[in-house]
């Protein structure tokens, strides 16, 4: 059973193609990876799936800026979500933890998490808050600290925790390891695995550098210049000689 099915998706910025005929699937309860270098289209794909692209499109139209076109099919548990607004997609369980984290800088750690719990019921929020603090004990010790003053790794933990508070069914992680130390990379990769195993959330994770993420994914896709060039299980990707050199730094 696939929670998410993207079919023949194309995204254009003006006449430049950003996503070229990409079809991907996320199997329910699994971790799926998307790999690719800068400008391969990872973030664009994430924005398209989460619906943020609709908001960007609207804003661009308002100020007469870039024309954004999205065509294709996107289904969440079989339901067409192409025309659903981003906040309603979040309500349906598609929650994006964006590139560069976008922590609320003036709110404390606890408040960031509370704002994240907007869609959660009181008991869900309490339960998830407890879970986030067991997953990332470091956050508990800095509950009162302002989000803007956290380090990169701390911010990433907070961003994932905040996304969990929104009760996702499909969690989209866009470059969660960007700019982190190797130790923090491993810790976060482990946390991603834990979230998937312990509370059964389906995860789609996009990364530039595949190595730390590869051990935790079940299936992966490789994007290049907006198009899908390869897909397979983690093992198949590792074994592919072209991929090895280009993306896994082996």
């Amino acid at each position: 059973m696939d929670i998410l099915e993207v079919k023949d998706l194309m995204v254009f910025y003006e006449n430049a193609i950003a996503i070229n005929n990409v079809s991907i699937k996320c199997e329910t309860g699994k971790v799926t990876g998307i790999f690719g270098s800068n400008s391969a289209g990872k973030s664009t794909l994430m924005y398209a799936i989460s619906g943020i692209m609709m908001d960007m499109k609207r804003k661009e139209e308002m100020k007469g800026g870039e024309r954004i076109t999205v065509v294709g099919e996107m289904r969440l548990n079989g339901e067409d979500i192409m025309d659903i607004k981003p906040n309603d997609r979040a309500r349906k369980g598609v929650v994006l933890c964006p590139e560069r984290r976008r922590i609320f800088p003036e709110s404390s750690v606890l408040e960031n998490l509370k704002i994240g719990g907007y869609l959660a019921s009181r008991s869900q929020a309490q339960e998830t808050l407890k879970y986030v603090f067991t997953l990332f004990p470091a956050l508990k010790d800095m509950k009162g600290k302002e989000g803007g003053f956290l380090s990169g790794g701390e911010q990433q933990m907070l961003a994932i925790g905040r996304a969990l508070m929104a009760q996702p069914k499909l969690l989209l992680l866009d470059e969660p390891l960007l700019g982190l130390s190797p130790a923090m990379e491993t810790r976060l990769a482990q946390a991603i695995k834990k979230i998937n195993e312990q509370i059964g959330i389906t995860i789609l994770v996009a990364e530039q550098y595949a190595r730390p993420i590869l051990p935790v994914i079940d299936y992966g896709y490789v994007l290049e210049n907006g198009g899908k060039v390869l897909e397979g299980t983690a093992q198949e990707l590792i074994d592919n000689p072209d991929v090895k050199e280009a993306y896994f730094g082996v």
Partner: protein
Amino acid sequence: MEVFIYGLARGSTLALMAVGFSFAYGVSRLPNFAHGAFYILAGFATWVFAQSLGLNYVLSIAISLVLLAAIGAAMYRFILIRVRGMEVSEIIASYALGVAILEALRCKFVGTGFSTPVFIEGTIKVAGVPIDLQRVVIIAGGVVVIGLIWAFTHYTRLGLSLRGIAQDERAALMLGIDSDRAATIALAIGSALAALAAVIILPVGSITVNEGYDVLISALAVCIIGGLGSWTGTILAAFILGFAGTLTATYIGTMWESVVVVAAIILVLLLKPSGLFGRQKEFEERV
């Protein structure tokens, strides 16, 4: 002492006038240039309900607040939503609505004979300084309103979601917070706050159409000095301007008051273009 108490009253007045504008702008980045018109409209609405229709005073005030909240929400839903993101159009559209309201009011309400009754009659002496009780109500009202807004935005789900939108709209969208809904609510609350300010402040003077323009200017001055969108900045700036105005009136002369206000704006803009607590580029992005 006299300066302190009158400065406090004037600061509270300015804070009440500005807080609605600041709230709406802080949450939705929409400058509501109809703010002053809403303020005066609420004053006349209360006057009509209480004096012409003979309704109970408290009821009249409540109806005015609800009415203005509805007008604020409607202004977003039917007008501002179409031009959102284009600052100049937002200003022109809301200012046009404000002018339309004020000039329409001018047809009906001529002269200075309109005033709503004070809440409590009489004056008291605080440390030897006589102050009428309505001004005490203004000070208390300012404190209560600011306290309530603070509690609302820190402890309720809706209030927290508004703060999320205010800080990073797109991140809030990802968490399921609807930005159109947030903007509607922000403008409704902002307009209701303008109305609340009007019903508390207007009893000490009379309701005139021209004051609508003055209130808008005062609110803008306070918000620019405090830093657009910063709530702490707004409150601080209100009291700075309040005390500066009172000090000038007492020691230099009343005619210099407005000069001091404008000079304060220019000074702040020269030294810190984003205002005292402006948050443009306040935090460096961490990668």
